[in-house]
């Protein structure tokens, strides 16, 4: 019984690490540009498809790693154009409703466009390690899941370094905290917007590949990561990256435990229940300093 519990917690942490990647991208974009992007999970979907078509070209885990890179770059490029031509014109209008509706339009477009291009059947990203299982003392998992976990933790760590140690990272955080002050400090806001959106969508793309490796890849898969990422960002405080990291792990664990001990059918509802409770009780999120409305 206890070992089952531990197993579930660790499974939750692995899944949670993938949620983190997607959620960090979402929360970065929201923090810097105030864009609540409902199409964020569809960037993950696109990333996963990039990987599916690339991973067969090079065999072994080298192929898997390079597929991740290809997905990140590919989705980043798409993100650049989406930001420049779709969201940028709306930023001057500055209405929440327009931005949300536009992202919903993008969501409908990408989800159904993907069905046209890739077909509706679910696909799997080829497992480079042939689903080799590993057993720790009280915990067994497949090698690929562990690899997913290590990869996302490394990415999160590198991202944190980028945001705290480099000049551009500091500029991004400054813009997120106070746009006008950042502008007065000589930060090129327009450039920061592009960078943030590109990095944010690339993270979604990476998350998508990992998500697709653990679960499956299909055109409609984007909605779930989006909603989960929103749950996580709300839990951690919107625009708060550290909050998104903790939130991701919390949701991952809560879902696997809830799915196991409460009800499998309502597993996906756990995120929503968290959202509603958090918003009603602590609207600024667990790690949010001041309340943003």
């Amino acid at each position, binding site marked *: 019984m206890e070992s089952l519990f531990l197993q579930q917690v660790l499974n939750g942490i692995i899944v949670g690490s993938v949620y983190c990647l997607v959620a960090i991208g979402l929360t970065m974009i*929201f923090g810097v540009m105030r864009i*609540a992007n409902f199409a964020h999970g569809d960037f993950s979907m696109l990333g996963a498809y990039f990987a599916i078509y690339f991973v067969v070209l090079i065999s072994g885990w080298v192929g898997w790693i390079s597929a991740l890179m290809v997905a990140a770059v590919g989705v980043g490029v798409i993100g650049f154009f989406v930001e420049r031509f*779709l969201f940028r*014109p*709306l930023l001057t*209008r500055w*209405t*929440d*409703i*327009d931005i*949300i*509706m*536009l992202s*919903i*339009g*993008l*969501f*409908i*477009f*990408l*989800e*159904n*466009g993907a*069905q*046209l291009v890739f077909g509706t059947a679910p696909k799997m990203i080829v497992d480079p390690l042939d689903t080799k299982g590993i057993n720790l003392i009280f915990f067994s998992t497949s090698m690929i899941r562990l690899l997913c976990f290590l990869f996302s933790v490394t990415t999160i760590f590198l991202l944190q370094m980028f945001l705290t140690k480099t000049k551009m990272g500091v500029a991004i955080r400054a813009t997120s905290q106070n746009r006008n002050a950042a502008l007065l400090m000589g930060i090129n806001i327009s450039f920061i917007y592009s960078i943030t959106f590109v990095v944010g969508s690339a993270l979604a793309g990476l998350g998508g590949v990992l998500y697709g490796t653990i679960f499956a890849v299909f055109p409609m898969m984007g*909605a779930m990561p989006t*909603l989960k990422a*929103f*749950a996580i960002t*709300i839990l951690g405080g*919107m625009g708060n990256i550290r909050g998104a990291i903790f939130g991701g792990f919390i949701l991952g664990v809560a879902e696997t435990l809830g799915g196991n001990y409460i009800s499998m*059918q*309502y597993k*996906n*509802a756990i*995120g*929503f*229940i968290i*959202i*509603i409770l958090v*918003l*009603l009780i602590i*609207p600024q999120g667990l790690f949010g300093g001041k309340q943003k*409305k």
Partner: protein
Amino acid sequence: MNRKLFKLSLIILGILFILALPFIIQDRYFQHLLVLSGIFIILTSSWNLLAGYSGLLNLGHAAFYGIGGYSSALLALKLGLSPWIGLPLGGIISSIFGIFLGIPSFRLSGPYLAITTIGFSEILRLVSMNWVDLTRGSLGLYGIPPLTSLKLPKGILIKFVSEQNFYYVVIIFASLTLFIIRRLVYSEFGISLRSMREDEMGSESIGIDTSRYKLTVFMISAFFAGFAGALYAHYVRLISPEMLSLSETFTVLTMVMVGGLGTLYGPVVGAVVLTFLSEGLRFLEDIVKLNIRFVIYGALLMTTILFMRNGIVGLFQKKTQGTKG
């Protein structure tokens, strides 16, 4: 004076045209689309009341629609209640659920409210799928009774099984909805809603109790959405949890945006245009053998927001009115 007369005759002609439409085109499929448009008009108008006039972005509207449909259908199936009573009851039950979204909206706005409302509708969709004893799960409810026939004196019996007769029921309710919403929007209530949309804090400072208004508008909107759902249930007589899905909300949202957000007739235009466009595209799909319908929906929604913010109705209005929302 002459102009007024001209306008009046145009309106009368329009009404006559709408009334005669099922006789002009006898095709049952066409009549079916007319009925669907009518139901969508009620649904889109109710959503517009929230998003367009009050600035409350509700992305869980399909939940209200579904609750209305399920309530009325279950009341008829399990308790044998007449659908004519079920229609308003569906609305009332849905409006009670409106309270659950109205209360969070006191403190939340923009993306926060949007995501809460999505959560609300997704939870209810999961309930409708998993509460198999009551809702038969994803199989849905079937065999829902149609609206009971009206007995007129002299032995005339009006049945509501045919599209043609149902069309008139829908037209009456859609007009009634539009009439009520029009009265609301131009009343002090509506003005307060719009002032709340433009500047919430400012409205509070001039004595508008925004919380009370938000709760009320959520309940009214939910009532109409539930009513539309109940109509749909007794018309199609087969409902499933799909009715509460996000894509249902997104369809409504696209209709309102394309028609014109925050305008009285925008939702009407959007509902009719997109219902027929959607069917037109279905024919096109048969030719090109691709599911292009929703891709076009998405593109249409994005184009509307980027290039014609006030929708089709906005194109015919004076430029001076500015953007809303």
